Structure formats: structure tokens, C-alpha cells
């Protein structure tokens, strides 16, 4: 259940990445992958390398998905900038 909350949080935050200039590594799909993986990975690490079960999942578990999502987004953006991706004006 914890994993579901993290992934949902990641997906929710990824939707707002559309307001950023698209310089992401792999474009919009690359940012999606990085956000989902980041949310799950950081949530897993911060929870002490466990995935909270049905009874252990709380609102704070869902909040744990936020830092990972932002880090994932930053990673995809940084990598894109480093590789010289030009912003896509849409």
C-alpha cells in the first residue's frame, strides 16, 4: 500500500512538470520515469528499506513520495541540461 501511495504521489507531481521548460532527459517520458522511480526509491529508503503494508500506511507515507519525486524531476532536468537539450516551446 505504501508503494501505491508513493507512485500515486509521484504521478500526481509529474503532471505539474508540464509547466517547466521541457529540457528533461528523454523528454516528458524521461521525466515520468525519473519521478516514479525517484518517488518509490526515496520512499523505500526513508522508510528504512521497507514498504509499509496496509495497516502501516498513513498520510505521512504518502508525503514521503514528494522528496523522491522532486529529486527524480531534478535529476531528469539536470541530465537533460548537461546533455544540451534545448527547451521545447509548446
Amino acid at each position, binding site marked *: 500500500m505504501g508503494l501505491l501511495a508513493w507512485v500515486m*504521489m509521484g504521478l500526481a507531481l509529474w503532471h505539474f512538470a508540464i509547466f517547466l521548460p521541457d529540457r528533461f532527459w528523454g523528454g*516528458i*517520458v524521461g521525466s515520468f520515469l525519473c519521478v516514479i522511480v525517484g518517488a518509490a526509491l526515496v520512499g523505500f529508503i526513508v522508510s528504512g528499506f521497507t514498504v509499509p503494508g496496509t495497516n502501516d500506511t498513513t498520510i505521512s507515507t504518502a508525503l514521503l513520495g514528494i522528496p523522491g519525486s522532486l529529486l527524480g524531476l531534478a535529476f531528469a532536468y539536470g541530465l537533460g541540461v548537461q546533455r544540451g537539450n534545448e527547451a521545447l516551446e509548446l
Partner: protein
Amino acid sequence: MNDRRRNLFVLLAIGAAIVASAVVILTQPTKLGLDLKGGVSLTYQAKPTKKTQVTGDSIQRAIDIMRERVDQFGVSEPEIQRSGTDQIDVSLPSAKNADEAARQVGKTAQLYFYDWEPNVLGPGCKPDPTNSAVTGGSNAGGTTAAISKYDAVQRAATCKPTSTGQETNNGQYYLVDSKTKTVLAGPQLTLTDLKQEMRDHTPIPYLETATRKVVKIPAGAIVVQAADTKPADDAFFVLADQPALTGTDIKDPKQNFDNSTGGTGAPTVTFNFTDKGRKTWQKVTKQIAQRGSENNFGGNAQSSFQHFAIALDNQLISTPYIDWTRNPEGIDGSNGSEISGGFTIKSAQNLANLLKTGALPLRLKLISATKVSAELGKAALRQGLVAGLAGLILVSLFLLAFYRVLGLVAISALAVYGILLFALVKLIPITLTLPGIAGLILTIGVAADANIVIFERVKEEVRAGRSIPVAISQGYRKGLSAIIDANVVTFMVAFILFILATAGVKGFAFTLGVGVLVSFLTAVLLTQAVLGTLGGSGVLSSRGSLGAQSDAQRFHWDFMGASRWFFSLSGVILLIGAFAVGGKGLNLGIDFTSGSRVTAELVQKGSESQIRDTLAPLGLDKAKIQRVTGKEFKSGEAFQISSRKLGRGQRVAVENALSKRFGGGQYSFQFVGPTFGNTVANGAIIAIIASLIVISAYIALRFEWKYAVPVLIALMHDLLITAGVYALFGFEVTTATVAALLTILGYSLYDTIIVFDRVRENVPRMPRAAFSQILNRSMSEVVARSLATSLSTLLPILALLFFGGTTLKDFAFALAIGVLSGTYSSIFIASPVLMHWKEGEPAWRKRRARIAGVNDGVVPAFATSVGGASTEVNVDADNKPRKRLTSPDDPNRGVDRAEWDSLVRDLHADAPPPVRDEAADLLPEDLVLKDEPKPRAPKRPRNSRHGRKR
């Protein structure tokens, strides 16, 4: 074969199929599932015994024995079949003796005969044949000398293991509490099984503490319950596990009466011995008689009589004595023997039946049980049929309102679809279950969708100025690829569900799959034949008859420009969903959490607290009690009592207590063990992953791989939004929800495929447009069609939601959310993601920059051109071989005068296609003169690290 002949052939073939279907429908019975006719459904997991491993053969032998047992009870139409690698499903319809049959069918029925006195183990795990405090003396096997189960287990644990080859097991595990001196669980043959039993039966989890310990009884000792006791009685013996005979040594068991001289006339079970059994019987009874004789020191001979014990599944059922004065040489087994003591006629019959069919070669663990009362089943069937009819009517009205004459043709096709499908259901036969009916109702939407896709195409062609016959022909030709793609995907999802899902969902998947195939036949072939025949007639003479009277039907809206706001909307919904999942969690039903659920429809009205008070004395004060309402209940409501696993006795006690307090009631029962729950959950996860992989592969093959990724993102969006809504509103997640989620995958794709199909078509037609412009154009063209297909799918779902009863309501709700979310995500998630991704490609970036350059730095929402020139090229002028037709009545072409005239009219009606000007899209520097050689691209320098310096 020309079109007219082909149409005639199709109409005749389908007409013949309708006649054949009518015969099948009138003559064949409909096979109803237990949820529609009432009955008991059991799922067992097979476990190995000392002598038999779980294999296909051993499971088949077990099934044969179980079938024989059920037959003995005269239960008609039982279904016993293997499920997966180690499970057996048993379905017994509501009938006399069905409950009893259900109780007996899974019993192991291992029968053992023990020489009693030398095998009863006293303190220190030592036999003491002459000590009546250990053996029970003349009351051998009774409660007099019996000890508590806790003491028996502790005593047996001190025994030394033996390996004579006669032991019935390799050791058994118990969990005991030394503080309360009770046995919490066991016997189990493995520690894993013991842990599982703890999860099944008790509210306390498996945990070893200072007082709670696992005790292993070694091979060679066994704990048996005393004779003439009830399961709850705490009277046990420890035996040396060296049986003299087993159930395989006897034959022809029968229920009889003790009519011997001085007999009591009480019910008994008589049997004969096999040859081997007869010899062993004589030998053992002779040893027992001799021991009795040796123990007699004068006086009453009866006081020295020795006993043998008959144990069935660790319960002593009889301990008769051997009269050494009458049988000093033992008892000749040629006349058989009998088991007596405490039988009623029914229990003696049951035992005789069990012995007759023999012991199961495997141990069977009940992992799921469902009992549905016949009344509830009938009500569910009635509601399913009403929902189906309502769905059909709603879809028909919708088609009629939107497509007029075309709608009438589609309704006829739907009627034919219904007839063919119902005949197939009877012919195969498909066991019709409640989820199966839901599948059938949903395929009404599928069948209507296919027609809508084609009809919208036909309307487009008519609005583009084509004559009606040409528009029909073009509509079918152009619409077919999207229909095939969508149907293939739905069929693949149904197939995956059928392979991986549990029994209830299988019925849904099967009917969905069959429905998709039949709908393709009726919605495409039949309607094409009908319209092809009507095309030249007066029925379809005006555009109004097709519902295409108006030209201003195309939406002109900047879908891609608005996508960021729809992205934000989705983000907010998902954010709320994420917090709901975190804060409230998903309300997982007992399909996943395991446990028991009694659904009680009571005669007198009550409240949750009254029910709790009634059940508190039964230890169910912490049970989850929930009021459910539905038309299938006569009183309009019922109560669901969910708790840990309830044994049969506890369940009967619950029913009795409620009936006594509330003046009677109708009861349904469901038990799901953790094994079954895990199977369901794992099956669901595997099915979702497998569906996603197959869908991606198909989209990648049919379109291009970059089209598959937005589809997956949109599907994930739909599934997570549905999960979020479930968490937010606290709806129960059941196996039906999983089926609904998987169906959502298919339906969500239907819309996306329609959009992407048009994008695929428009890309070569708009060589000067940006990808966003192509998408905007495509969306404008298909949004009406996409909304219409969603509405036609939603209508039967709404019928299920409002008329389908309690069970189907949850299912329909998940589907409704999924279909709405699927339509939304196809338009506002999948397409924008595709746009963003494709626009990042160098070729599209270049094109976009060029368009921006001539439009003051702005890329218009729709493709425009300077001077009003067309932004499109005609790619319909394909390379297909053309046929030349120069005159009517050509014998080689089979074209008569009327067709010739019609063709000539069409040719005049249709505007001549513009010639494609490939150079129009090229930059000046890309242009080369015809006789000027095209400059070659410079050679790439070789890698300096590996090649020579240039």
C-alpha cells in the same frame, strides 16, 4: 465475387446462423453458476502426504474419489475440477444433502486399526498395557483415561522417533501455550502449514513467545481424540503410530444395524476384508485374544478382554474388544467385521460412504468456501437480466437518436448479436455467472462501439461530399483498422484474464472474449452487408437519414494548448487520491484479506448493535458488521458479518443465534483462506503486468513504439485514479474490482487507439504541419466519435449500476470511473504526452521552427497556409492495383447497368483528388534540378581513437 453477391452471401449465412441459434436457444438448457441458482462452492489446496506427492495423477485420483463421494449423496450436476497446479474447485448446486456432501467431500478419511493396549502410551511415552489408568480398561478409548490435548501433545513430544515404515506421518507440529495449557494450532505436517493455520483460525498472529512454543511430535507417536466425543471435547490419547491395518485393507463397507443375538439394533458400519486384510486381521485379533487370555488370572473373563481401536482422521470412532473365550484363534475375517458405537443412521451412512470411496491420496486444505442461498441466486439472476435488458434499451435509444437509419441497422445487429451470443452460451456451454452476465452486458457496448466508429466515418465521408454508397464503402474501409485494433486489444485482455484470474472472473473473461468475437461478426460484417444492400435504395437517400444533415460538426478547439490545464486537473485528482490511499487506505475485501463472511437477510429488522450483542456470546463481538441494501433482498437489506475464519459449527451457531433473535433468515456464507487470497492478489498483479506488456507490444507493432509509452502512462493514470476514488469513498476492493480494472485497460485503449489511428492517418496527409497541429486536427475529427463510443459503453455500465444488485454495483462503479477516466486520459493525457515526445524529435523541431518563423514566432493551433492553399495532400491515391471499367454489362466484371450508372454518378459527385506536390514541403536548399546530381552527404570522419589520422 462482387459486392452485391458478397452482401447476399453474408445475409444468408447470418440468417442461417439466426435460425440455428433459435433452435439451440429453444432446445438447450442454460447452465447457471452457483451465484445464480444457489449452492456451495469450495476450493481446496492439495498437500502431500508421507506416501503421495502432489502431482497431476494424485490430484486426478483425489478428484475421482471426491466425485464418487458427492454422487453418493445424490447431488445433481456437481462440478469438481482442478484449478492451477495444486487446487481443486468443488461446486455443488443447492439441493438436498448438498451441505452434508460439502462437509464430507474434502475429508481425508484415513482409516487405521490399532491394537489398543500395547500402543497406548502413558507417562514418559511408555506403553503400560495393564494399567487401566492409561488404557481405560474396559472403557478403552473412552474419556475415563483420556488426558487433555495439551498434556497429550507434551507427552507425545517426549517420544523417541521410530522408523518401522508403518508410521502414518513423518512427525507433526503443534503450537501450545504453556501458560493457559492449551493447544493453539495443529496438528500440521510442516511448520509452514502451522503458521498458515494460525493465520486462518485465530485472531493472534503466529508468534513464539516465552509461553507459546512450537512442539514437534516425532514420527512414531500420534495424538488421537477419545471415542464418543465432540470436536470441542478435550479428551485425548497418545498412541504409538503403528497401525495394524489401514483403510485399504477393507472393502464393501455398508451402513447396517446391530441385529446379532443380544444386539442393540443400533446403526453400525459393516465391511469385508481384502485377502491381505483378512490374513492380517486374523493374525492381529489372535494376538489380542492371546494377550487377553494371558492377562486373565481367574474370575471374570471380560475384565481381561483386550481391544483394538479404529481411528478416522485422528479421531477414535470405535474400540471394540476381542472375546478370547469365543475367539482364541482370533477372528476369521472372511465374514467381515463391523464398527459400532454411537452412530446415528446418517453418521453410519456417511462413514460407510467415506470408507467405500476410500481415503484421499492427498491432504486437502479448505482455502475458500462460498454458500449462496437459492433465493438470493434467483434474485441475482433476475437483476442481471433486467440490467442487461436496460443496457440494451439504453444503447438502442442512443443509436437511434444519433444515427437514425444507421442506428436502426445497428440495433438490428445488436439483436442478432444477442441471439447468436445467447445460443453460443448454451451450446458451448458457458456456465453463466453474475460476473459473466456483466461481461455480456459490457459486450453490448463493444458491439455498439464498432458501429459508432464506422458510422462516424460514414458521416464524415458524406459531409465531405461523397455519395451515400461511396461514403458507406469508405466508412467501412477506413474504420476497420481502428475496430480491429481495439477488438484485438480487448480480446487479449479477456484472454489474459481467463488464463490468470480466479474462477469467478474467468466467467466474465470468457463471455467478454466470446462477445468480442461475435460482435465483430455482427457489427462489421452484418451491418456492412445490410447497408451495402440498402445503399442504393431509397431508404438511405438523404444525409438526414444518416444523422449527417449538418456540416458544422467538427470541434475546433486547441486541445494541445489546453492540455497543461487538464494535466493540472489530473495532478490534483491524483494528489487527493494519493492522500486518500495514505490516510484511509484501500478497503480490501475478504478475497484479499481472508476470513469469513456471513450475509444474513433477517425476517425482523435489526441494527448493527443488536446483531453485535447477539453474536457477542459466540466470541464475535469484534466482528465487522455492515448493513447492505439491495433489491435482491426481500426486505431490501441484509447484514454482512465479517470475521476471522468460522468453522462449520461456529457458522451454524451464528445462524441459529440470529434466527432465534430475529425470527429466522436467509444466509449466505463466504470463507477465503490466506492462500486463496494470495492467489487472487498475485493473479491480479500478474494479469495487470501481462496485459500491459501485451498491449504495449501490440501498439508498438501496429503504430510505432513511441505510441505505446503514452498509452501506458494513460493506463497507469486511469488505474491510479480509480484506486484513488476507491480509497476516497471506501468502496470495497474485491476480485470483481480487479476484473473491472483489467477491463478498464481494454476500454481505455479503445479511445486512445481511435485517436492514434487518426493521428497515424493524418501524419502523411499533413506534411507541413507541426505534430501539435496534426494532433489538434485529429482530436477535432474524432472527439465526437470518442465521446459517442464512451457513452455507448457507459450506458450498459449505468444499467448495471442501477439495476445490477449489490454484487454488480461495485463492479459497475469501478468500470464507470475507469471508462470516464479512460476517455479523459485518451484525449488529455495520452495525446499531449505523445505530442511532447514527438515534438522533441529533430525532424519535428525543425518543422515547428519553420512554422513559427513564418507566423511571427507562434505555432498556430491548427495548420494554416499562406494564401489559403491546402495544408493537406491526398494520400488516398495509393498504389493499389486499379481495375479498369469502360462499359456496363461487362461479362468479366459483372457490373450491370444500374451499378454503372451509380458509379458514374459517384464519380461526378466526388471532387477530383488534388495532386500531391511533394516539393511544396521542401526548403529551397533541399530542392535539386532534375538533371543536377544530388549532392552526396559528406563522409563521416573515422573515429580518431581507432582509425588513422586524416
